[in-house]
Every structure is written in structure tokens, then in C-alpha cells.
């Protein structure tokens, strides 16, 4: 299938599996979504839902040799990344697709200076000379609003606070002005105040550079504030997808509703009983083919044994039509 021109990324029926002691497990099971140019798409779900694996499959950063893409396509600007050679993918990763990971300390090398690590991106992708790369890196640090960038270039990662480190990681991801940024829980490890700074920064850079963003988070507040489109994942599958306004005002899947209702907000009465989703995300090995949320809720009716169809129920709003979990109000 060809890509429509307004979408920079199209993920089609992606299947990613892991070789484990329990056999081959599908962490990502027929996932499809697209990212329009310049827009922000959020992927939300609990830990173990396959959010990160989906994102890492796009840039082929799966743990090796266990992780494999077994089917589907990822079209980035018309090129199928699932069939790209290692050399091609390495050029794109860090070049036209930037990646930010959750834990900035793990993404930075502790024994090299900040400057060298940011400059390295320019040396490799832009083939700049050492001097030019250093100057470009300083400029990048300035762009992400790190005070006194010349001085910071000489620091090691442990000299910086969590927020500053995340800024450095953002600087590295944005160094080549990518058209797509994949941010995997970029603010989860940070304080709310620093989170607000980082989200504000990402928002501004996004409009300056004109890039699209895939934002992975479990914080629905962050999703509501930053995303245009939202993809809700549960146990390796997309259960609902809609624009942010639509999803928050009119959630249709029981899982989405459960997530939305379990967060306390400033408006929730104190010490009232919060809604909960019983149980937890089941281990993939224990799941059968049918509707996975029904399995968590302990529903065993025969209708739930078939995999529910994922269909568009109103323009731009798609949901898994499981007879139990699809709950239009």
C-alpha cells in the first residue's frame, strides 16, 4: 500500500515477537497507526502493554537477538523501514528520526564529556569537522536552553541534574533537525516543574523545526496537554485510537475508561474511593487469542474468544469492537 502524502510515518499491521523460555511471544500484535507530519501522536497504556516495543520496532532498536519483527510494514517517508539495511537504518536513526529515552543517565555515556557526545552526532551524520561539530553542539545546547552552554560542554553527565541531562538528550535527538521524534517517557523520571519545562521546550522546538512526534507515556495528563492523536494500547494491541479531544470526552473502550477514571485529579473529592482496573496486565504467555481486556476482567463468554475487530466507529475514532469492552455511552 502506498503512503498518503500528509503522513510522515505509517505503521501497518506490525508484529514484533520475542524469543523467550515460554516460546515466541507477540509483544506487538498487528498494530497500525499513522503519524501526520508536524503532529504529535501519543501512545498510552500501562507498563508491559507494548508501547516501547512498538516505538523501538520503528527504529529497529529491539533487544538482539530475542526481538524480531515478524510482519507488517513501517513506512517512513515512503521507505519501508522493516526492510531497510542496517546501514540505511543507522543513517535514519539519529538523523531524520530522533529518539529520546526515559532515563537520560542511561542514554548518556558517563565517561565522556557532554560536548563530545553532542558533537558526535554532527560528526557522524553531518560529517562536520571537529571544530564545526563542537560549534554546532554548543548551538544545540543553547537551543534547548541550557545556561552557559560553552561551560556545560566540558561537563560530564553526572555533573548535571536530571532535567539538564534530559535537555542534553533532547539536544542530541534534535541535532540533525529530524522530521520525526520518538520520545519514550521523556519526563517520567522528572519533577512536575521540570516536566513542564521539558514539555514546553519540546513543544516550541517542534513548531520551530516542524517535526512530528510520537510521545510514549503512561501519564494521561501529559497526553491531554501535548498530543493531537492518541493511541491506547493494551497487551500488545491497539484498543482505541482517536483525537485527544475525542478520546478524553468520549472514550469508548472499557480499558480507556478505566485508565481515565483511575487518576485522581484536583477535582476528585479527598479520600473518596478511586476507580480501579482489577488485576494487572497479564503475562503475554498466558493470553489467548480473544479480547485481552476481557481476559483481565475474567470474562469468559464465548463471544470473547474471537479477536475483536478494530474498526472506525466515527470519523477519526477507531476502537476494538468487543461485545463486552466496547461501551458506547
Amino acid at each position, binding site marked *: 500500500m502506498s503512503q498518503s502524502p500528509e503522513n510522515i510515518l505509517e505503521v501497518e499491521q506490525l508484529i514484533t515477537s520475542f524469543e523467550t523460555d515460554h516460546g515466541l511471544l507477540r509483544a506487538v500484535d498487528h498494530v497500525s497507526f499513522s503519524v501526520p507530519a508536524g503532529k504529535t501522536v501519543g501512545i498510552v497504556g*500501562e*507498563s508491559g502493554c507494548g508501547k516501547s516495543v512498538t516505538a523501538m520496532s520503528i527504529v529497529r532498536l529491539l533487544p538482539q537477538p530475542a526481538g524480531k519483527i515478524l510482519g507488517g510494514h513501517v513506512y517512513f517517508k515512503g521507505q519501508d523501514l522493516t526492510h531497510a539495511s542496517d546501514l540505511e537504518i543507522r543513517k535514519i536513526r539519529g538523523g531524520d528520526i530522533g529518539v529520546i529515552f526515559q532515563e537520560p543517565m542511561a542514554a548518556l555515556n558517563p565517561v565522556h564529556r557532554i560536548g563530545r557526545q553532542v558533537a558526535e552526532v554532527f560528526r557522524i551524520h553531518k560529517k562536520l569537522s571537529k571544530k564545526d561539530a563542537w560549534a554546532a553542539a554548543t548551538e544545540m545546547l543553547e537551543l534547548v536552553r541550557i*545556561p552557559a552552554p560553552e561551560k556545560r560542554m566540558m561537563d560530564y553527565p553526572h555533573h548535571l*541534574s*536530571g*532535567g*539538564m541531562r534530559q535537555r542534553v538528550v533532547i539536544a542530541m535527538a534534535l541535532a540533525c533537525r529530524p522530521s520525526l521524534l520518538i520520545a519514550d517517557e521523556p519526563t517520567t523520571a522528572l*519533577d*512536575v*516543574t*521540570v*516536566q*513542564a*519545562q521539558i*514539555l*514546553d521546550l519540546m513543544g516550541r522546538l517542534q513548531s520551530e523545526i516542524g517535526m512530528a512526534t510520537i510521545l510514549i507515556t*503512561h*501519564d*494521561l*495528563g*501529559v*497526553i*491531554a*496537554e501535548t498530543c493531537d492523536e492518541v493511541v491506547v494500547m493494551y497487551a500488545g494491541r491497539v484498543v482505541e485510537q482517536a483525537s*485527544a*479531544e475525542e478520546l*478524553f*470526552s468520549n472514550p469508548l473502550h472499557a480499558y480507556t475508561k*478505566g*485508565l*481515565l477514571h*483511575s*487518576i*485522581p*485529579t*484536583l477535582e*476528585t473529592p*479527598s*479520600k*473518596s*474511593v*478511586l*476507580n*480501579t*482496573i482489577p488485576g*494487572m496486565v497479564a503475562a503475554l504467555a498466558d493470553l489467548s487469542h480473544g479480547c485481552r481486556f476481557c481476559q483481565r476482567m475474567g470474562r469468559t463468554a464465548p463471544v470473547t474468544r474471537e479477536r475483536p475487530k478494530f474498526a472506525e466507529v466515527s470519523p477519526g475514532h477507531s476502537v476494538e469492537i468487543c461485545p463486552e469492552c466496547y461501551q458506547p455511552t
Partner: protein
Amino acid sequence: MTHPLLSVKDLRVHFPVRAGVLLRQTGAVRAVDGVSLDIAPGETLGLVGESGCGKSTLGKALVRLLKPTTGTILFDGSDITHASQSSLRPLRRNIQMIFQDPAESLDPRMSVRAIIEEPSAIHGIGTRAERIQWVNSLLDRVGLPVSSAERYSFEFSGGQRQRIGIARALALKPKLIVCDEPVSALDVSVQSQILNLLVELQRDFGLSYLFIAHDLSVVKHVSDRVAVMYLGKIVELATAEEIYQNPRHAYTKALLSAIPSPDPMVKREKILLEGDVPSPIDPPPGSAFGHRMNYSRYEETIGMDLSLREISPGHWVAADPCCVSAEDWKKLS
């Protein structure tokens, strides 16, 4: 207020900074720098602030896992500030703690039963058979099957592990539990289960909590009163309703505005803070927050007494001219 369960006066916890060959003390990290607060029986006091503001240090000092530098801690009327390790033992029955990361606070080599039984065994409570009964009833109370007692903590998910940590904290029937970020490592759906459990246990056992967290919506949900901490000091203290409806200190306002709202229609005006919490080794001489924000009246605060004053009944705010509105400042000064 009735007789408080815990009363802290001008508590300071400083960590020495040593340098040079002789490791002479060259300075101090003023992690907690003059904190006073009370917790009433059955009350939850929420404690919020950014990383590095001294929340956890304060919590650890209250359970005496850290030695306070100066100040007093009164628990149920008796001074525990400088109590020796042996005299602390009876105290530990009454004050327990729940930690952020249940994976790190549970011994992987001990069965769940051993973990939960250990406090009672150390304190010599009951016979072996009674303790087995007690562990079973605790497991049931925190929502775990009794069969989990013979398993090991790593076999459980994060939420279940936190339940084990809660059962251990309850084992000695304490009066006060210091909860240090008990839900921040959990998914939202599991987080709400644990919050419900904590609220239920409080109602059933009349527990008091010191609830330390950086998630302000969570703190609002569980707390009766909330203290906002900045660089080792409390800058505002009021009932949960009051502090969220009517924040007076600039830092509280900034913290509240930073919470992302789970409603795309609500677009709150954000107050973006510049930079990070300054170093507690070398804190600015005047108003720490005024210094960070470069407020125009910062110079005035140098050498000024910035301690908490009551601006309206039960609402305490730091008497800091650069962080409160001009109108509030008139009331305070």
C-alpha cells in the same frame, strides 16, 4: 487542634561536607533546615516539593533513620530526638515506614511470610503460631492471597510488592506511617488500588500518615493538610482544600500550575520555573525561591525572618515579601 501525635520543632538535618586530605568539614548540606510541623492522630499530612528539597530526609529523620542535627521531635509527648538505638525500639512499634521502591526495600532472600513476620519476631510479640495467624490476616487485609506467604517478593508485580511493604509496616500496629513516595513507581490503575487501600487502612486503624510525594493530585487526594517544602524549609502549610484553592506562596502556585491536566479542554496558564532547586550546600542568604526567580524584592529578604506565619486560620505561609502578593504581605508583616 487536639494533642498532636507527632510534633516537630525547628528540626535541622545537616550532612557534613568533607574535603582535603584530613577530611575536615568544609561545609554542610542543609537538607532540612528549620522545619516545624504537627501531625494529629488519624490525620494525613501531605508533603510535596521538587527532588532534592529535603522531603525524604525529613521523613527519615522522623522515624529516626537519620540523626537530626538540632531541633526536637516529640512523639506522643515524649522527646525522641536524641533517643538511643535501644530506647528507639519501642518507638519503632509506633512509627513505621513505606518506601518508594518495594523491589529494593524487600529482601529477595526472604519469603513474604518472613518479611512480614520479622517485625513481630524482633519485638517478641506473640508465639510462633500466633504470628503465623497474624501474617495471614495482614495478607488478607492488604488484598493478597494467603498462599503468597510462602513465595518470594520478586515473584510479585510492583503493586503487589507495595502491598507486601504495607503489610510489613502494619505488622506492629503502628500509630504513624511515613509513606515515602509509595505510589510513584506504579502504573495509574495500580496506583489507584494502593491509594484506596491506604485510605481504607487509615479509616479502619485510625492511622496517621506523613505522605511524601511529588504528584500533587495524589497528595491532594489523600491528605487532610499539605505542607509545601522548598530547599529544606516549609514555605506553606494549610488544609488540602485551602492550599489548592487558594495558594499564597509563589512556589506553591508554580507547582500547582505545572500539573498536567487530564482534560485537553482545560488550558491552564503555566508558571514555568527557571532552572533547578539551588544547592542546599550554599543556599542563597535571603529567600531561596525569590533568588531562583530573580524577584525584584529579593534584596529585602536577606537577613529577614522568613518563618511561617498564620495568614488565615490554619493557613501558614512563609513571611517572604517577594513570594506573596503585596496584599498578603501587609497581613503578614
